[in-house]
């Protein structure tokens, strides 16, 4: 369905506002911060809220304009940014349900977090700077969300990295934790494998930045491959008519070129072409997401990022930083081949499982949530890798909301307990902090995937998508699904462990319990709003659609699959908000053996639909089973005390697993003691080569030049200089003579002039009579 030009203009204006208002707030706080002082929080919150309102307008606008049935073009606005000869790199907005909904999530959550921050950050010496950084961070994230091309995404991608650097190292002046006597007291109860000597905000921010650079390196290579292929293809005779030189990295252009015109089959790069090259490009691009979304093996920065303010962690984990990777993967999803999809899925599965096991053994309330975030991001990747994009994105949104809330709850608990984060000293807090307790319980139920909470729908959809994929492809594709199911149980277990240890049972530390108190309204109101959103039955179903989940409200029963101009009607498939605007996985898949998409036949769609139906039922059953299993185990261990966790450690395999988990699978050790020293050896070798070989060469060259120069200097001093001096002397002598005539009296000059003239005339007259 074509979109009217007015709509495009309105949507573009809205998107511009959404993007620039937080930036304006950041600029105002940056430049007028001293005058504003405490008022900076109001400005930031107001700006974010205005941006949120515009996001709602944008979302409703696109829904009302597009209609939920249309799987048609998204709204695109782009303008030239850099022109390189005939190539035109563009910037602009790509507005579809994915981006407009994401805008709502980012700005909405940021508004709530900022309100909460007025309470949480109160009294901090860098109070207003925090709000400025938050605005900048959200601006960068919104740039990624609204971007219409890979290059602009990359630009804002790096800005997000900068924003996270600001926030993680917000308390940069804090010394490493190892120097903290408070920490030393509690050291025994800590069970992290992070190199604690290094654990300071300044180090954490560096670590996050460096780990992200590794991923971004791959991202840059991926963009480079796409760029090269597009430009090479654009010059080919048959492709002149497609106008690929204008915005070759635009998503819509890329989709069109890769999926319809098969540019990768036409171009050979480094001896590769077709599916191989496309798979490689997809994998490299996905590396960026691995860094940003803390996927195995680049996940180690995220737990350290807990060094920042809890509210900052909350926004990093929910809506901005880590969401960027998933979001970007969803954006490039139409470009992923089966190979790269499998890569995404397997990375996601491993991440989900590893992080969940790490979360099992943490004692720090924030650390549990941090590993939980990594695990859930792995979930989203499983979904994306299974081609269930809507499920992955839906989980991104639901997870954003409940993880944001869980962090705010954790912040509330930490604040109430005098900045203690050790769950061993909590317990029974539900009487002291009823609202926080309730919110956290809702969040836990949501993340566990209990029915009628938001996480249930998205999580089930993920598992269903993954199962359908496994059933279709077989073999190794079962791995992500199995890991996902296991992780579902682990998730439930560690989350309820957190809840039980914090809010139930007897207070372990009487003093802390006595001083604990509920946070003020500034904190609890955002929690209540978020808790309401976690009761997902009234909205999260709309995201995904499908005919299994019963959902009230807007849903439609028919849709169109459009590929190569053919339209296939499929009856009785309910489509959600996301389905309507995203390029459906069905049009990407299945691919033929050559990796080219072909339009789905009606029968195939029917079969796929059937398979999904079956998968959904199975996945729901399995996931509910795992939830019950995890909940039961946690209940037995931490409420009933039927099983003492300490006793379990006496069993050798479990003890081994425990030390493995608590040492974080030795990833940090490997990086810190393996890769970093290896690099240091390499660096030393380079340094030796530089100082002994390169420098020596340069030095000897310099010596030769020096000797030559000495000779030249001698010639210069004794020959050239004397010649020059001689010229100078001659000039000086003439000058002295001439100067003696310059007496400075005009009469003298007049006299000489006329005297000479007269004498000349007389002379001529006499000489030539």
């Amino acid at each position, binding site marked *: 369905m074509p979109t009217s030009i007015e709509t495009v203009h309105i949507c573009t204006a809205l998107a511009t506002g959404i993007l620039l208002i937080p930036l304006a707030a950041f600029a105002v706080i940056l430049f007028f911060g001293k005058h504003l002082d405490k008022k900076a929080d109001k400005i930031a919150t107001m700006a974010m809220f205005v941006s949120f309102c515009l996001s709602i307008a944008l979302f409703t606008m696109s829904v009302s304009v597009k209609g939920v049935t249309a799987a048609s073009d998204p709204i695109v606005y782009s303008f030239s940014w850099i022109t390189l000869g005939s190539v035109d790199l563009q910037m602009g907005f790509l507005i579809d349900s994915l981006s407009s909904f994401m805008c709502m999530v980012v700005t909405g959550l940021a508004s709530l977090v900022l309100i909460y921050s007025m309470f949480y950050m109160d009294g901090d010496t860098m109070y207003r700077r925090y709000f400025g950084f938050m605005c900048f961070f959200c601006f960068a994230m919104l740039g990624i969300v609204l971007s219409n091309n890979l290059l602009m995404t990359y630009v804002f991608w790096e800005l997000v990295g900068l924003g996270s650097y600001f926030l993680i190292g917000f308390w940069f002046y804090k010394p490493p934790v190892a120097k903290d006597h408070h920490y030393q007291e509690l050291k025994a109860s800590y069970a992290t494998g992070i190199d604690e000597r290094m654990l300071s905000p300044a180090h954490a921010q560096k670590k996050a930045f460096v780990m992200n650079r590794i991923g971004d390196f791959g991202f840059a290579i991926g963009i480079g491959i796409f760029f090269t292929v597009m430009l090479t293809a654009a010059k080919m005779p048959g492709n002149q008519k497609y106008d690929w030189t204008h915005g070759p990295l635009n998503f819509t252009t890329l989709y069109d070129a890769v999926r319809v015109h098969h540019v990768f089959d036409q171009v050979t790069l480094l001896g590769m072409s077709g599916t191989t090259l496309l798979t490689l490009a997809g994998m490299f691009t996905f590396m960026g997401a691995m860094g940003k979304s803390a996927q195995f093996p680049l996940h180690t920065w995220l737990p350290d990022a807990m060094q920042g303010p809890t509210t900052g962690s909350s926004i990093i984990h929910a809506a901005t930083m880590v969401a960027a990777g998933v979001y970007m993967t969803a954006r490039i999803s139409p470009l992923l081949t089966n190979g790269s999809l499998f890569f995404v899925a397997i990375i996601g599965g491993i991440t989900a499982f590893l992080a969940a096991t790490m979360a099992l053994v943490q004692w720090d309330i924030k650390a549990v949530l941090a590993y939980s975030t990594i695990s859930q991001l792995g979930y989203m990747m499983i979904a994306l890798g299974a081609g269930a994009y809507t499920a992955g994105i839906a989980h991104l949104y639901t997870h954003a909301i409940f993880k944001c809330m869980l962090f705010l709850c954790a912040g509330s608990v930490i604040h109430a307990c005098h900045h203690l984060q050790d769950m061993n000293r909590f317990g029974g807090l539900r009487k002291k902090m009823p609202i926080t307790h309730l919110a956290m319980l809702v969040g836990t139920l949501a993340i566990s995937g209990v029915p009628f909470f938001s996480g249930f729908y998205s999580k089930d959809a993920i598992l269903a998508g993954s199962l359908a994929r496994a059933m279709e492809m077989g073999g190794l594709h079962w791995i992500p699904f199995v890991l996902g199911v296991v992780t579902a149980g682990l998730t439930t277990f560690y989350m309820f462990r957190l809840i039980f240890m914090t809010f139930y049972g007897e207070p372990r530390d009487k003093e802390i319990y006595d001083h604990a108190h509920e946070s003020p309204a500034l904190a609890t109101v955002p929690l209540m709003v978020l808790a309401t959103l976690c009761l997902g039955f009234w909205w999260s179903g709309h995201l995904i659609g499908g005919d299994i989940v019963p959902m009230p409200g807007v849903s439609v029963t028919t849709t169109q699959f459009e590929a190569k101009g053919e339209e296939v009607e499929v009856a009785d498939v309910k489509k959600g908000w996301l389905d309507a605007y995203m390029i459906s996985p069905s049009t990407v898949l299945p691919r033929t053996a050559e990796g080219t998409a072909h339009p789905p036949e009606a029968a195939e769609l029917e079969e796929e639909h059937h398979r999904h139906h079956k998968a959904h039922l199975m996945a729901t059953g399995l996931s509910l089973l795992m939830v019950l299993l995890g909940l039961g185990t946690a209940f037995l261990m931490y409420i009933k005390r039927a099983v003492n966790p300490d006793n379990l450690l006496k069993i050798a395999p479990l003890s081994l697993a425990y030390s493995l988990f608590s040492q974080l699978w030795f990833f940090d050790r490997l990086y810190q003691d393996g890769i970093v020293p290896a690099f240091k050896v390499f660096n030393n070798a380079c340094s030796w080569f530089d100082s002994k070989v390169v420098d020596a060469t340069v030095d000897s060259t310099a010596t030769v030049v020096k000797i030559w120069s000495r000779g030249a200097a001698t010639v210069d001093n004794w020959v050239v200089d004397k010649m020059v001096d001689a010229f100078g002397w001659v000039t000086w002598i003439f000058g002295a003579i001439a100067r003696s005539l310059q007496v400075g009296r005009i*009469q003298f000059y*007049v*006299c000489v002039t*006329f*005297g000479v*003239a*007269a*004498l000349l*005339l*007389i002379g001529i*007259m006499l000489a030539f009579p």
Partner: protein
Amino acid sequence: MIANIVFWAVALLTAGSSIFVVTSRNILHAAFGLCLTFLGVAGIYVLLHADFVAAVQLIVYVGGILVLIMFAVMFSSNVVEDTAEKGRSKLAMAAGGGAALAIFGAIVLIGVRLTGPKLDGVFTGPLATANVNALTPFAFTIDGTAYGLGHYLMGQYLLPFEVVSVLLLAALIGAVVIVRKELN
């Protein structure tokens, strides 16, 4: 005959007063002498049938420039004490006299040269196909030269005329700028 007498009288007045101008020790006296010289030159112009130029000479030189000079003399020196120059140096006098004599001689020589040697009672120089004194004066018109000059100034010489007007304006502004006292 009367014309001869008038001519010689005017010529002697002009020559004498100009010599007085340059030899007078008192600058104010020199200025008065200059007045006489200007008047004499105007008379010469009349004798040369250049009535309009003579009038302009009177108006501009005597009426304008001379007044300006007097003004400068009054303004820049104490008339009673400073105007008498404290003796020009002998060297300057000698140099000036020498140069002046040399110039005068040179001009006379040129005049001789232009008229050329006299062969058989006829001068043969480029300026004198006949006797230099026999050059034909232009016809005297009773209307004077004002009409003709105006005609040429507004016609053939229009561009120089305009240029000179611009130059006058520039000189005027320049003079004002130079003597203007700084406001601060």
